[in-house]
């Protein structure tokens, strides 16, 4: 599913729409964890990373693993330095007001069944 479709269906905020071609990024699945090395072990290419972490170092992890993007949950907002770094590295930063559990439930249904329910 295209990232633009995920954003629309789940009403995500895009913190850095400057990333060229972000709409067309293919999202295959997701991975949820707030521990960086667990994400390095568990997240696969083209998956969305769902987390409450939003400091500078998450960008390096997302880039390292070729994540489709990072979804920051619970309404948390990354600081300017993180957004700037993400844009430089071509990592899409997204936001939701939902907590990780609620967001993952919806994303799971969307990616598995094509609808949120």
């Amino acid at each position: 599913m295209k990232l633009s479709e995920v954003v629309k269906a789940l009403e995500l905020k895009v913190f850095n729409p400057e990333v060229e071609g972000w709409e067309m990024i293919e999202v295959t699945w997701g991975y949820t964890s707030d521990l960086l090395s667990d994400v390095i072990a568990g997240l696969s290419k083209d998956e969305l990373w769902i987390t409450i972490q939003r400091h500078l170092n998450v960008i390096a992890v997302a880039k390292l693993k070729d994540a489709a993007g990072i979804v920051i949950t619970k309404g948390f907002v990354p600081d300017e330095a993180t957004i700037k770094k993400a844009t430089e590295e071509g990592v899409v930063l997204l936001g939701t007001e939902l907590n990780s559990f609620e967001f993952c439930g919806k994303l799971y249904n969307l990616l598995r069944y094509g609808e949120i329910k």
Partner: protein
Amino acid sequence: MDSEKIRLVYRIKPMDLANAGVASSHVKIELQRYGIEEDVVKRVGIICFEAEMNMILYSVGGKLKVEANSDAVEIFAEDNGPGIEDLEKAMQPGYSTAPPWAQDYGFGAGMGFPNMKQNSDVFEVESTPGVGTKIHAIVYRRKRDETK
């Protein structure tokens, strides 16, 4: 390009979280340019990132060296202390000595060494408390189906 050898060296500064990942992402770019297979680059990137993070968070600083030739990519991470008290424990998944502030940032999953080992064909650690830690890892350049 394939016959010549590539050698990269980075100085890693302690507590330099702002630059964490810079060395490993440079390694990835250079190895890609050298024509190293994508899955090998990926594995080397993970090993370098974990080694880099370990040196930033836990050491007084050190060096990350990467050498590549037509057969393999070798990674050397050497710091100047303080060394690991219990290496056996450090190798266990889930074991961490990360201080609370680092845990708040999502460090200290206790997956650093397990991730490095998992992505290496050869993985060796030597650590002397009071002296420092030396990591040596090799990733062989083989076709994906031959590694299975």
